[in-house]
């Protein structure tokens, strides 16, 4: 039993004279919820639903199926999205590096508007590797590990704040199953990543990695250091794919706040987290990212140690 629970139990046990009072919440107008994430190469999909009062059941979701969704690119309307199912509206266009806007009308609800920009991809121009012994401080002891140190060369665009998510996967070639991709967890002694250990999140597509900004290396060429522990390797051929996702500010804030929200949701003593939204007159998120990747290939032979 943790300390918070003990204290609460004691407090309530001592003061059993507490009373419960029902409180009526104000009726809140329902709002349109718009969720869409743009990435180069994927079709544009917008999901529309309605917000709910906090006392309503979560399910079923109230999807909007009669909405009018207009997509604009660089200030020019280019498409009216068609409804597919479950509130999903699909465009015939694929996103590029540009500013996109969405306007949504639905009977009985306030019109919502939002805009976002897809950032240009930032490439990993080279990858240097070395076998190293890594160290990580945990409480009063130091965790030691054997790892492949990877130095990823990035040239950050100048005069702007850039947001990134780095994911790593091992592309495994199996004679029976064919090619499949295993997500790889990595550590980092790099100050860019080490400053916040709670920044590992997933993109809605499955790529998992650490969020970071260019605060330390804005506009410069930087070698980002990560450590991949040996147990991420397969006996034989390995292809490690490093994906650098350039996120726009909206997606960065959304992922960061959503991760904190999920972490704190069940903590009685955690400060509540406000999840980022950029929908005018509504809720949800409209955001984008672009991705570049680089890879290394090597054969790995297990040396018989505790780990492969």
């Amino acid at each position: 039993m943790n300390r918070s629970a003990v204290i609460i139990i004691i407090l309530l046990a001592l003061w059993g004279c507490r009373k419960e009072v029902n409180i009526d919440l104000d009726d809140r107008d329902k709002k349109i919820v718009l969720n869409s994430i743009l990435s180069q190469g994927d079709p544009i999909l917008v999901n529309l639903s309605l917000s709910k009062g906090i006392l309503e059941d979560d399910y079923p979701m109230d999807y909007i199926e009669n909405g009018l969704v207009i997509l604009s690119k660089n200030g020019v309307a280019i498409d009216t999205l068609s409804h597919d199912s479950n509130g999903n509206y699909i465009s015939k266009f694929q996103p590029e590096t540009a500013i996109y806007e969405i306007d949504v009308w639905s009977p009985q609800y306030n019109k919502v508007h939002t805009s976002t920009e897809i950032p240009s991809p930032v490439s990993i121009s080279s990858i240097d590797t070395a076998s190293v012994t890594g160290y990580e401080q945990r409480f009063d002891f130091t965790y030691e590990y054997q790892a492949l140190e990877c130095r990823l060369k990035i040239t950050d665009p100048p005069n702007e704040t850039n947001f990134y998510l780095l994911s790593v996967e091992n592309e495994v070639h199996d004679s029976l199953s064919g090619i499949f991709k295993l997500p790889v967890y990595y550590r980092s002694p790099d100050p860019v990543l080490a400053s916040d250990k709670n920044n590992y999140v997933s993109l809605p597509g499955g790529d998992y990695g650490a969020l970071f900004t260019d605060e330390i290396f804005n506009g410069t060429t930087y070698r980002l250091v990560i450590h991949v522990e040996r147990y991420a390797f397969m006996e034989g051929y390995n292809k490690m794919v490093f994906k650098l996702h350039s996120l726009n500010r909206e997606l960065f804030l959304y992922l960061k706040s959503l991760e904190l929200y999920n972490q704190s949701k069940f903590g009685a003593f955690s400060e509540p987290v406000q999840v980022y939204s950029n929908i005018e007159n509504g809720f949800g998120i409209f955001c984008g990212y672009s991705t570049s990747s680089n890879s290394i290939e090597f054969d790995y032979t297990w040396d018989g140690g505790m780990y492969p």
Partner: protein
Amino acid sequence: MNLRTIFAISLFLIAQFIFAQKYTISGYVEDASSGEKLLGCNIFDPEKLIGTVTNNYGFYSITLPAGEYNMQCSFIGYKSIPFKIELRNDTVINLSMVQTNLLKEVEISASKLYSKVEESQMSIERIPIKTIKAMPLLLGETDIIKAIQLLPGVQSGMEGSSGLYVRGGGPDQNLILLDGVPVYNVNHLFGFFSVFNPDAINNVTLIKGGFPARYGGRLSAVLDIRMKEGNVKEFKGEGSIGLIASKLTLEGPIIKDKTSFIVSGRRTYIDFLSQPLIRYAAKREGVEKFKAGYYFYDLTGKINHKFSDKSRMYLSAYMGNDKVYLNMTEKDNLSIYDAEMGLRWGNITTALRWNYILSNKLFSNTTATYSRYKFVTGAGFGEESLTDNSNINFSYEYFSGIDDWSIKNDFDYLPNPNHAIKFGIADIYHTFKPGINVFNTSTGGFSLDTTYGNKNIYANEIALYAEDDMKIGSRLKVNAGLHYSGFYVNRKYYNSLQPRLSGSFLLTENLSVKAALSRMTQYIHLLTNTSIGLPTDLWLPVTDTIKPMQSMQYAVGMVYGIKEDYNISIEGFYKTMSNLIEYKEGASFFSSRSDWETNVEMGNGWAYGAEFLIEKKKGDLTGWIGYTLSWSERRFANISFGEKFPYRYDRRHDVGIVLLYKINDHIDAGLTWVYGTGNAVTLALEKYASLLSVSEYYYEQNIEYYEKRNSFRMKPYHRMDVGINFYKKMVWGERKLSIGLYNAYNRKNPFFMMFEERNGETKLMQYSLFPIIPFLSYNFSF
């Protein structure tokens, strides 16, 4: 220049010297029956409108031109002493004042000259201990902090809490001094009672703004509590028996008129009273042995020795602890199980003080102090197999706290009636103990005994100050000063120069306008995200990244005195605060403390408002009505996306009414009523689908929408307490029987709120803590 001219000038200068020759009257003022020094007592000449006030040690000094003076000494609840003096040389006059009868003690007899209207200080409140003792009580326990919460500009936080939120500041921003020693945790019983036992207290002063330069180290308030010194004349005692606690105070001379002592103790007995019930319930549940309970106690002591008229020494100490414990043993055919857990927290403060009168104008006070706050929690579990005698044991303990050693030297220099100069120097050596975990386990052949956690942090804080309380002409009084402080921690030195200025201008005999500004710096932070006075709150110093908190407060006001009965005051204030800390969104109070710096955000805050107070200090009906209109807001770059949000204890309207009525010489009655705008809490009222709902990789998820931090208001808080006191002279002394009602009209005030599932529906529930609670307390003194 001819010889005649030189002669004339010389004669004039000699005459000036002769006629301007000044002498000093000085001495101590004390209570005639106990020898207790009287603090803030007025010594003045009502005709010539000159005078002075005793300092915190009962010492006064006034330097006047030679001549005849009709002086008067007056103090709250005491008969004034007129005395005539032909001042021809320096004179020492020690004064002994006689109390008016006990039931009149809540009256004030101070002259208009040194009333609130005239003093240079503003935003200062003094509540006589006798008034506090006459007020209605929670569970029969007189509480100094709860009385202070009824003053304008001061909020109490949660229901029943002993927190002090002064002019939009947090409880960590209050410098709470017990005999000059900082007390870090003033809460007993999770904040429902304060640690100060009123029977051992002599004087309570609250300063909310316009801080004199002698105080520093906190942003929002100074609560200066002075202990009694002990009766040097005769042996005395007083005590009380209440519903949850009893207390006893004994005082008397060790060497008559030279050395005295006072010792005071208090303990709760909820644990004794509830033990049979707990055992009975445990037996019914099949638990072999079960012991659980809670108690707190505090002990206060002081020895005071007078070496000579010029030299006195005091040794005072306070020790208080709260303890929660649970032990249980269960047994079945296979094993015996033992489990135990506990929480313990408390303060120790000690002060050794030496007063020495260097000259009749210069008073020195040298103090060495020690203050410690310690929190310990632990749990253990053991299982012994009855079949193969194997054992499994596990235990865990966590310690945290803060230790302070300090030495300071304060001087009062009173060159003439127009200047009262104070200056001094102080050094505090802090040891911060941010948390040590001790983990012990043994099972079969494996055992582990490890200690881990944060290393102690050592810091040194220095302070220098000088202030002058000046009288400029007949209408203007100014207190101007400078406070310099420095803080050395982890090879980094922070320092700050803080100007302090307050003044009053007498528009008419009964009406003055006042203004003040003060800059304050605080080098220690309290890591907390709850307000129920949890003992786990952690004091931590500034670091490379966490900078010192700073505030700047401006205040203007007006005081109007009606005869000697009423004071009406109105004050407006504006306070800015920088480098405040808050937990980051999502950070948990119970998350690892090792990286606490990464769990907090720094930001700014500001508070502004107006306070209105009517006090009636004489007559059968006494008390006050206070009203505060205020705003308190915060802005942190990474909280609520940088938008400003209300402070949790932002309270738009706050009312405190205290009425004490003397029915006859044997009975008086009290009534208090409080009203406050509901607390600001963070509550989600809507929810919506997340982005992950559009991804085939994730389950659908709803996000609860928080408009911004502290954007929801709980219902207003209001409560009335009533009480009646019956006094009776007995053969052995006097007794007072107090009865009354806490929360007399049974208002269900919100304590906290949460969503709950009830009969398949989600509901928002409000929990209230204290319904109507009668109290009964028997007090005695001999």
